């Protein structure tokens, strides 16, 4: 599954858009969805840049899935507008959806059919596949997600992870310009999770946009270029992952083999510092070059100095709790 066989051909059909110049893969404006008395999505404006790996973060019930469902035309918005691959939803769905692969709310298949039959049914209604190509495409997709051996077993006997893989196979049956994965690692073991990461990386390499939602921060941090944070239906933050992290960045990480003297020198220079693993973390005080000069003057061995960036979890905690 690490080599996305069918994905490589995506370049033949889909031009790789230059990030920033191409229209966003998805765009929502003032999007709202109310279920009875519950506002699931509350006035969200969001662009998913073409070519990005876009992670949607948020606790359960924050509106991630509802937002995705409105994006794909599965749920009608209460108000607001949606564009998918530059086409309005729902009028443009017939033209847009063939280029979209999606795994939403878990894999949906019929228990009485085998994995292969289930995929054949998906392939039969796939406009991008000619009738004669459906068989080979199904076999290739099963091979890619590692289900070739289980292809003739009924879906009802599949484990959670196998079901998830079959769902992924259905989403990636043909090369896509946008792949939407809603909680893709649900039910997968660590190896499966790594495979998903590899798939996402492959997709990105072909120029496809990936929109994935998750409540697992480490997963998003590992693969995403962009993130959006949702809480109770509202968008709290959205943008390039690096920039978001920089915005909350502060302090310096100093790699040294001699942390004791280093701490003393830094404190004399007026910095708030503490030992952090093998090195030292400066949380506040003078700028990096000043600290570096002081350490060199005191003949403390310095192996490296770089800006300290918080991890996504810190960022997420800060955003959601502020």
């Amino acid at each position: 599954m690490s080599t996305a066989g069918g994905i490589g051909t995506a370049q033949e059909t889909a031009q790789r858009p230059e990030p920033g110049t191409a229209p966003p893969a998805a765009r929502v404006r003032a999007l709202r969805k109310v279920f009875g008395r519950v506002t699931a999505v509350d006035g969200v404006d969001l662009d998913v840049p073409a070519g990005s790996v876009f992670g949607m973060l948020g606790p359960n019930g924050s509106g991630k899935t509802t937002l995705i469902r409105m994006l794909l035309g599965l749920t009608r918005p209460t108000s607001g507008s949606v564009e998918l691959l530059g086409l309005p939803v729902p009028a443009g769905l017939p033209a847009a959806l063939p280029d979209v692969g999606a795994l939403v709310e878990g894999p949906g298949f019929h228990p009485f059919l085998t994995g292969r039959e289930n995929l054949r049914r998906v392939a039969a209604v796939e406009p991008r596949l000619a009738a004669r190509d459906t068989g080979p495409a199904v076999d290739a997709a099963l091979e890619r997600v590692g289900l070739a051996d289980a292809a003739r077993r009924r879906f009802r006997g599949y484990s959670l992870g196998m079901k998830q893989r079959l769902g992924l196979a259905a989403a990636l049956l043909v090369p896509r310009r946008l792949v939407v994965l809603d909680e893709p690692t649900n039910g997968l073991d660590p190896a499966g999770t790594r495979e998903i990461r590899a798939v996402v990386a492959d997709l990105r390499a072909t120029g496809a946009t990936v929109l994935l939602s998750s409540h697992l921060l480490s997963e998003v941090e590992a693969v995403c270029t962009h993130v959006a944070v949702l809480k109770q239906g509202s968008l709290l933050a959205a943008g390039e992952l690096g920039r978001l992290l920089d915005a909350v960045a502060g302090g310096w990480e100093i790699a040294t083999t001699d942390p004791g003297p280093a701490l003393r020198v830094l404190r004399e220079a007026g910095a708030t510092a503490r030992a952090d693993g093998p090195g030292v973390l400066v949380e506040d005080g003078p700028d990096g070059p000043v600290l570096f000069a002081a350490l060199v003057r005191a003949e403390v061995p310095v192996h490296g100095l770089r800006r300290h960036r918080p991890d996504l979890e810190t960022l997420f905690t800060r955003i959601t709790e502020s």
Partner: protein
Amino acid sequence: MTSGSRVRRGGIAAALAAALALALTVGFVTARASAAPDLPPVPPEELVASVLEAEPAALAGTVAVDNRLGLPAIPGVPAEGFTDGTSTARVWSDGEGRGRLALPRPDGERTYVRDGTVTWAYDSADRTATRIPAREHDRSGPAEGDPQAAAREIVGKLRDTSTVDVDGTTEVAGRPAYTLVLAPQPGERTVLREVRAAVDAETRTPLELTVLGAGPEPVLRIGFDDVTFGPQDPALFTFTPPPGVTVEDKKFEDKGLKDKGNADKGTGPDAAAPGRGHDPDRGGADALRTVGDGWDAVVVGTVPQGRGPQATGPQATGPQATDPQTTDPETSDQRGADRPDLSALGTPVSGPWGTGREITTNAGSALVTDDGRFAAGAVGTDVLGAALQQ
């Protein structure tokens, strides 16, 4: 949002489709109700004369019978057909004495075919074809077991004791018709209010007969639901007993036949109205006699062994014309074998004529005395009592 207008358009289209479907269904179900047509006025006497003189017409149609006579259920006799309800019959006539009458049941059918020489009665329940000699039916036959014959006979019987009027026009089975109304003249001691007949404007064939009692609803309505005038397929008026079917011959003397014969004649509807006693065929071995004439005629007789008054009482024969049960040979056999228990019927009464039980219905009443005499008519029990004493 474009999605909104798109969806709205779909919704409107679907709503229109639903409305159209509803309108079609309503129109079709209520198609029978229609306005009174414009017809040139006709004097009542002329209308009566034209009805009595009109040639029997060749036709095919479906006849509906709405029975609200309010007859009691009689123990030992199947209830269906006697008791209130709706039934239908299909009739064909060639206008020359040949005819066909089909009385459908959900699970079978009883068919009468009069081919000009004999009448065949076929019952699918026991796959029996019964051949009935023509003699019984020279005057009327199954094909006229319809509003035509019934109304003609009644109009003929009642015109002398009635005020006759034409009450505008109506439409029956899609055909314009005059409404002929016969009401009892003052002095007639009947419980009936009036008899209405819808007479086809073109052929002067009665299309519908309505008998009104004291209540607002008719006690009996016999009329065409649909009718087509014109020559009919001659094959309809022949009957060949199919293989595997039992063929029986009925003789005129046979008691069971008499029941059958009466039903075959389709005289049921007219029997619901008074005047039945004028029927010369009717006397027979039971020595029936008629006291009085016109609306308050009373049939008086003795309850014969093995025959219940339900078979001879004028009201009781009303629904027979379209009732498969009544004419069922099994029922006839049953009658021959044991007399229905009448003790549960009606209420005990006594009078100068003796003691017995009275049975009242929406269209008349009957008295059965403990010593086996009976009287029945479209009248109150006081008239019946007086008739018994005559």
